[in-house]
């Protein structure tokens, strides 16, 4: 066994102590420190932890750390290595059930723990998934393919294009639906860009993840995965959707349009919201998919899909704040950026000192679009002089496109053309409801806690 294995994760004084007493990881030891005696199994050390402690797993299952410089004696009583395994059972196939492909990009739909790093390692093969979420076999025949194993913040143009290409290939090969496992942090970014890159699909393309990793008993992962599989296998909604918990309770999932969805809480299960509209459907084990609206693209028998996977990543989002200096904009232009999405205040405003910089940007051929940092509502640049001035400078209002969606769309558009009029035309032509002609009265509902009527609502309906 190599030294790296024998003292796995240990560095510095802790590693020296283990070497000095001739013991390694997975050895059952009796250890005497200046504070007393301990009996346990030497565990590998998390590489991000300090180099001054040795970790023992006690017989009771607890782990404790002993300071390396306080160890007086260690005696090995033998070796006992533990192995992780997810109970793997062959995924049953049923010719009468729909075929679903699960494409993995990372994230933790199903997972196990690596206790050297404390990291969660995804379980992914159909057998592993069947071992942890056997209900999937009642829904569909599942094939899985791991495209990437990255945290969602590391997804980028290369992965988006690869993912879109894989989705189109799967559609052409005849699957009845696609599920995409994705980390939740940037799930709405990927959902938006897929909506532009994979147009008019004949089957559901359902993105799913979890807010509580599946190594916990209370995880939302299994239920989200079941909901996503149900949607992909059975629903007639042939769009790019995000499928995640509706309320924080284990009640139902919501199907959000890829271009209108946003992660709105850093940790809650009910973090995804459709912004400025209502979700497409509810999904639950009991009722299946229950549409909330009728204007979605319907499932088709044909295998036609328009793959348009291009992206120019020389686009940036400028989140405006009062007092912003014009050099922020100048810097982007000087570094060769070709598109800027501004998240402006209110109806779409920035301060006057920025005007000359915006003028310089437009003159340099940079395409500048305005969105609102309020997220809800439309850009309306005619109401105040500020807005009219900005439009005169060549800043183009992007209606009610969400800032991240506008970023994705502009990158996608600039992958096709840099002609000013053509860019503006494409940005203004909705592909997948990224701009909607109207915001319904219930498109903006953020219930305010503490109000008597809201408290009554909460008491009656589980959150």
């Amino acid at each position, binding site marked *: 066994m190599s030294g790296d294995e024998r003292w796995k994760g240990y560095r510095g004084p802790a590693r020296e102590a283990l070497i000095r007493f001739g013991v390694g990881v997975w050895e059952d030891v009796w250890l005497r*420190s200046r504070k007393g005696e301990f009996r346990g199994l030497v565990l590998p050390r998390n590489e991000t*932890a300090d180099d001054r402690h040795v970790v023992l797993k006690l017989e009771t299952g607890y782990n404790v750390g002993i300071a390396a410089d306080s160890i007086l004696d260690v005696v090995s009583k033998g070796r006992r290595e533990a*192995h*992780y395994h997810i109970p793997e059972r062959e995924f049953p196939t049923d010719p009468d059930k729909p075929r679903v492909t699960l494409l993995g990009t990372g994230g933790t739909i199903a997972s196990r723990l690596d*206790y050297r790093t404390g990291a969660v390692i995804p379980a992914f093969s159909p057998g592993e998934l069947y071992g942890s979420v056997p209900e999937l076999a009642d829904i569909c025949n599942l094939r899985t393919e791991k495209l990437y194993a990255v945290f969602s913040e590391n997804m980028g143009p290369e992965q988006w294009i690869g993912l879109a290409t894989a989705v189109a290939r799967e559609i052409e090969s005849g699957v009845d639906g696609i599920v995409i496992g994705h980390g939740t942090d940037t799930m709405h970014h990927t959902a938006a860009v897929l909506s532009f890159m994979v147009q008019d699909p004949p089957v559901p393309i359902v993105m799913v993840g979890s807010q509580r990793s599946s*190594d*916990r008993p209370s995880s939302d992962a299994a239920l989200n995965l079941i909901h996503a599989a149900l949607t992909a296998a059975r629903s007639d909604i042939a769009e790019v959707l995000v499928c995640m918990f509706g309320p924080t309770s284990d009640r139902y999932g919501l199907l959000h349009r890829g271009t209108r969805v946003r992660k709105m809480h850093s940790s*809650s299960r009910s973090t995804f919201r459709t912004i400025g509209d209502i979700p497409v459907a509810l999904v639950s084990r009991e009722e299946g998919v229950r549409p909330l609206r009728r204007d979605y693209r319907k499932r088709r028998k044909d295998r036609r899909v328009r793959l348009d996977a291009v992206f120019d990543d020389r686009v940036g989002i400028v989140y405006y704040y009062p007092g912003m200096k014009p050099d922020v904009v100048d810097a982007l232009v000087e570094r060769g950026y070709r598109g800027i999405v501004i998240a402006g205040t209110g109806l779409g405003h920035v301060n006057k000192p920025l005007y000359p910089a915006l003028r310089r940007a437009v003159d340099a051929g940079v395409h500048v679009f305005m969105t609102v940092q309020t997220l809800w509502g439309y850009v309306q640049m005619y109401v105040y002089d500020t807005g009219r001035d900005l439009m005169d400078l060549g800043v183009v209002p992007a209606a009610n496109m969400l800032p991240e969606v506008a970023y994705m769309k502009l990158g996608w558009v600039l992958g096709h053309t840099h002609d000013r009029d053509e860019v503006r035309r494409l940005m203004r032509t909705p592909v997948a409801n990224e701009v909607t002609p109207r915001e319904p009265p219930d498109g903006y509902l953020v219930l305010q806690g503490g109000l008597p009527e809201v408290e009554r609502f909460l008491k009656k309906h*589980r959150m």
Partner: protein
Amino acid sequence: MREPDSANSFDDLEFYAAIGLQCGLEVHRQLATEHKLFCACPVRPYSPLYDAEILRHMRPTLSELGEYDPTALMEFKTRKQIIYRLNRDTVCTYEMDDAPPFALNRDALERALVVAIMLNLNLVDELHVARKQYLDGSIPTGFQRTCILGVGGRITVNGRRIGVRQLGLEEDACREVSDVGHTRTFLTDRLSIPLIEVVTESQARTPVEAAEFARVIRRLCHLSGVVRTGLGTVRQDVNVSIHGGSRVEIKGVPRIRQIPPLVHYEALRQKALLEAREAAKARGLGPDAFDEGDEDVTAEVRRLDHPVFSQAVAEGGRARAVVLRRCAGLLAWPLGPTRTLASEVSDRVRVVACLDRLPNIAHTDDPSLGQAWWREVRARAGAADGDAVVVVAGPRQDVATAVEEVRIRMREALAGVPRETRRALPNGETAFERVLPGPDRMYPDTDLPPVALNDDDFERARARAPAPLEEVEARWRGLGLSRAQVDALLFTDRFRLFDEALPRVRLRPTVLAYLVADFLTGLGRDGVDVGRADADLLASLYGSGTAGTLTQKEAAAQLREALSDGRHAP
């Protein structure tokens, strides 16, 4: 062998040694912190009020060592819906499991260290927060965050040194409101209050000694000054086994005086189970004896007038008979004053299959349903004369679970005493609660980094720790105080006032102890504001003259007067 009867004093060393009683305690006690262990929520008095509810389910996950825990699988079989009631004043998104933990409460840590020092533990240098799985829903995450501060300590009980296996610092669980059918409801105000868990070695030789362990730990906790006191702040788990038996954990015993009968009857239950096993073996029963033989008897049950079954089938449920070959008579095997092997089977059916309207089973050792009816059921199920038959009824899926649980419990009877956690019944007996979890339910908490303890942490806690309990008690006893007076001082938390006032008054120490512990407590109960009774007041009343000759009664009269007319108010 002579068995003590229920009126005995539970201290017959010879008897318990002969059956090989081993008994230890896990004492859970809340720490008197202002805030919870992993979030900024305040600790408030319990309240049944709530603002909102959430619904969750629990799924078993793999432990660090790659195995499913048996308790986890049992709880998964119950398919419970868990409802949590949330009160905005005492719960945040952390307790809802909608936010990761914040840093460990340092005040709680320091308090726990004080107790660890008093227990003479070998202290660890780095805390590793673990997740201990609880799939019963009592914690919304599905696990309790817990860590070990020290191992291998000791306490002195009646002059005998008793081992303390470990001290844990952990978050408290929810309070259960109800558990009916497939729905279990919890209040969350108690959730995540910091708690210490003191685990003793199984060195109690009699049930009475087990209670003594608990009393010593209670005194030590009070003396530490770092714990919360009063109703609902302490719970004891009692571990019991005998020769050839298994470790059984009696959960959540709130009062120490309940411990001796519980230990006694559990020891006798294990003894009776081992005898039942021998009887079953003598009949040639093997582990595969219960693998098959069950039949739908819904039609037969329809002809009955049974308080539970009739309703179950009327609601569209099914009834099933399980044949237990060559088991006639075994189900009536007595396991305690009111319990038989059939009670254990019934418990399993109640807990795991959620058939919780009682009686939830009928069996051939209890002929109350009539010989004629049982003849029909036996015929339908294909049971022979020496066979026993158990009937269960309810929703189809629950009945399928119940049939399996009957078999599982009978197989366990052949193995002896199943490892279980049990709950206390009022008469000192116990009932099955869950399968006993193993170390497989522990896994590291990836949300929190290890917490290194440094010399300052240890020094601060050492400075805060009082003198050892034995020393303090010896000093008080040396002043002539009785055992009961010492306990009264400790348990009313007025021992500090006693020690402060003692050098400043001329009263006999026993009289002072009476005033401070018993008399003030009584006055407080009568609504008198006893907060003013500090060392200054006592010194002004009894600091001079003839106070040394005052009787208990005379001294008390003076104190009552002083507190009621406010003459000595500052």
